[in-house]
């Protein structure tokens, strides 16, 4: 009997799985026990074929046990440890003690990319053991520092290395490239929309959730996509967090430090957005971790879905509980929601005619309250530019994303410097007590706001939001104090500023 270690995923966490193989005499049969899913059970065909290319014929009764027995095992990533266990049981090779193996086998013995390499690397680092991954996973694993990992092209190379016939070169740890984020679309591609550009810059600076309101064709989606490109690049820690999520979900590392952008359709199920399912996989809110989560046609979303999104948006993580146990996923996202001003979309358009009745519009507007809307700091109305307006703004090239990002970065650094002692990172996170005390509101701005709060009928919460946004505007300007102009501009992004 021999035993080799592999992993299985529990959420975004790797759990060590011990693969025990026993071969006894008798007619050929092969059974896998230990709660394997279909992909694991089918591995016997792949493993048998791959071993045959190495001249290893399996005969007799084969029993494969995946321990711990009560943990469900999933995915093809257990192919490699099973194959090695068999090879060891046949006496063909001796496998190093404790090492973690993962990889999906092809029938000719090549190793295919698997999901979960980054969680496996983190587990290997924790356990202090070496890790063998398919070559295609080497890049993401190389970004995890302090792990002894080897990239394996195929089963033959690995077996040769264990026999001492060749030497596997370890994966060199690489610091993630500082290569600049390539925004798509770039802000220089967007014509006009000065107010939305400005609002998104502020949102990026202070990590404020945004609602874009505008008629069809006004460019809400393009603006939302462009937002990703002006967010500061991922830090090392953030990059690792996003890698962990992406690796668990099986999406390859694209390189660079760009943040993710996930658009959710309003027909999406709660499970696909929040995570869950049979094997408890991460949802959109987790895949957008440290990036942008875009909810287009916000008013069309089911209320229960929005209700379910509230907690992950607030806490930055989501706990998915299933019969098999509960799993935690990170979910720190910048939320961008977009909607039309009315059901038909043409309310207040200078050319098109709105066909909604008064009560339709009223009912539609009433949807803009409730579960997540109170997590939104900025309300931005986006005009649909007329052809002649587009022509007149078309002469000059607008500022590109890189220069906006440089300002955003500076503003973020200023926030970190100010709030880190109190345990916060950006203005959007600020609690009430800090807002009232140490936000740096100038006397002039204070007088201005208290003068105007009454006539605007601002609620306590509304004032807090204005203060947070004003703080971000001041940070962008590099100003230690919030001036009257900063406070006034913040008022332009409150909910009451939407057209009625």
């Amino acid at each position, binding site marked *: 009997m021999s035993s080799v270690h592999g992993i299985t995923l529990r959420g975004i966490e790797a759990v060590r799985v011990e693969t025990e193989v026993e071969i006894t005499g008798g007619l050929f049969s092969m059974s896998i026990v230990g709660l394997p899913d279909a992909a694991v059970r089918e591995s016997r065909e792949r493993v048998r074929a791959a071993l045959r290319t190495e001249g290893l014929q399996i005969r007799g009764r084969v029993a494969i046990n995946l321990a711990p027995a009560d943990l469900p095992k999933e995915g093809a990533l257990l192919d490699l440890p099973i194959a090695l266990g068999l090879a060891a049981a046949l006496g063909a090779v001796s496998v190093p003690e404790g090492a973690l193996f993962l990889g999906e086998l092809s029938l000719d013995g090549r190793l295919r990319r698997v999901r979960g390499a980054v969680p496996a690397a983190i587990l290997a680092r924790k356990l202090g053991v070496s890790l063998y991954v398919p070559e295609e996973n080497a890049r993401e694993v190389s970004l995890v520092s302090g792990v002894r990992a080897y990239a394996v092209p195929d089963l033959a190379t690995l077996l040769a290395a264990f026999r001492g016939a060749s030497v596997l070169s370890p994966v060199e740890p690489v610091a993630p490239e500082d290569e600049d984020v390539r925004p798509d679309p770039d802000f220089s591609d967007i014509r006009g929309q000065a*107010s939305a550009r400005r609002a998104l810059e502020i949102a990026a600076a202070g990590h404020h959730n945004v609602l874009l309101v505008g008629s069809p064709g006004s460019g809400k989606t393009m603006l939302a996509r462009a937002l990703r490109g002006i967010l500061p690049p991922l830090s090392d820690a953030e990059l690792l967090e996003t890698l962990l999520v992406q690796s668990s979900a099986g999406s390859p590392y694209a390189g660079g430090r760009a943040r993710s952008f996930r658009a959710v359709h309003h027909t999406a199920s709660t499970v696909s957005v929040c995570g869950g399912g049979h094997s408890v996989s991460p949802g959109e809110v987790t895949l957008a971790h440290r990036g942008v989560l875009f909810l287009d046609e916000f008013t069309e979303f089911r209320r229960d879905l929005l209700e379910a999104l509230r907690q992950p948006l607030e806490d930055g993580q989501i706990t998915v509980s299933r019969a098999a146990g509960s799993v935690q996923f990170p979910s720190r996202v910048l939320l961008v929601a977009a909607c039309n001003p009315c059901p038909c979309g043409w309310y207040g358009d200078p050319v098109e005619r709105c066909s909604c009745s008064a009560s339709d519009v009223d009912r539609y507007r009433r949807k803009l309250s409730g579960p997540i809307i109170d997590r939104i700091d900025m309300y931005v109305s986006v005009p649909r530019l007329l052809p002649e307006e587009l022509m007149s*703004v078309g002469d000059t090239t607008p500022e590109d994303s890189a220069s906006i990002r440089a300002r955003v970065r500076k503003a973020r650094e200023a926030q970190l410097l100010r709030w880190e002692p109190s345990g916060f990172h950006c203005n959007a996170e600020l609690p009430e007590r800090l807002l009232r005390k140490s936000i740096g509101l100038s006397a002039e701005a204070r007088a201005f706001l208290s003068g105007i709060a009454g006539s605007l009928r601002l609620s306590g919460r509304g004032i807090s939001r204005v203060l947070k946004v004003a703080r971000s505007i001041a940070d962008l300007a590099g100003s230690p104090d919030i001036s009257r102009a900063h406070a006034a501009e913040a008022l332009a992004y409150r909910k009451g500023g939407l*057209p009625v």
Partner: protein
Amino acid sequence: MTSSRPALILLNGLTTLDARVWERSRERDISPDDILRGDGKTCTALGIPEASARALAELAASGFHETEQERADRENVRIVTYDDTAYPDALRSLSDAPLALYIAGKWPLCAPTAVVGTRKCSSYGRAVGMALGRAIAQIGGTVLSGGALGIDASAHEGCLDAGGATAAVLGTGPDVVYPRGHERLYRRILEGGGVITEYPFGTGPKTWLFPRRNRIIAGLAERLAVVEAPMKSGAMITARLALEYGRDVWAVPGRIDEECGRGTNRLIADGAIPLVDIGEFASIISNGQLSLFSEPSAREAISNGMTDEEEKILHILEKNVHQTVDNIAAEGTMTAADVLSGLAVLAARSLIYQSGPGRWSAAPGIRKQP
């Protein structure tokens, strides 16, 4: 002889009868007691159809007039009947005057000016409604309207924002808020003004009740201003009735290619006074005594405490409507940030409004600089 009050409340409870039935009862010498007994013969004599007569008998048997009075006392609502001295003379002269009025809040209101229009108004119509409401409040007048969505609500709000008193004539019972979402508006109206209806407690929104109540608006108002009304609309019914009752009717001219401009334009063609300048309207209805708007200092008062940028933006918007931040920034050579902070302040002072998503216009009623 017993008081006529219970009988009037009872008859009014049917929500289909008016003062004509009461006059008939006098002519035919039918006493209130007969009505309270509600037998078929009395009803026939009064010309009440059979189905209504049965409903009346049921109401009478259930003691409707008593429970209604009790409820009114409890909820601080006054019931003023046709025979009461407190009944408004302006309504008594109508042939189809309501038999009873449920009044909450302050009453009577001085010199009410009705402002009505379509529920489905444009943002421009809303801005005009608000400006009219404000202007009427500033000359110390009262705004009367129907408490509905759209123009009605904007006129009430404009008046309240300027610290004036306003009254809503409802098409539902005094305890029913319609449309949903106007709870806050009704509360604000009741703070300094009143809510009036002829419909008893618990009457929900029914399509046929709203046109009926328009005669109360037209009757109570000294004059009527119509902002945005399609040809077939409640506002047009109100305007026709007001003309019939001999009230001054003003209409805000609209575009000739738009549904909601047709009604008002038709009114003007038929002899209504075109409302082309809010300041002028305000000074005429205040008999020229209080002409806040025509003072040349009015515009200066507006400019008071304004930054240069705000001044510049207001100028640009006074010239053109529907301007985006891009347009304003280009024309005024300002940054988007400056434009946005200027817009926020001007909007907070109700000098401009958002006429569409991301588009701004100057509020009607600000006098242009010479």
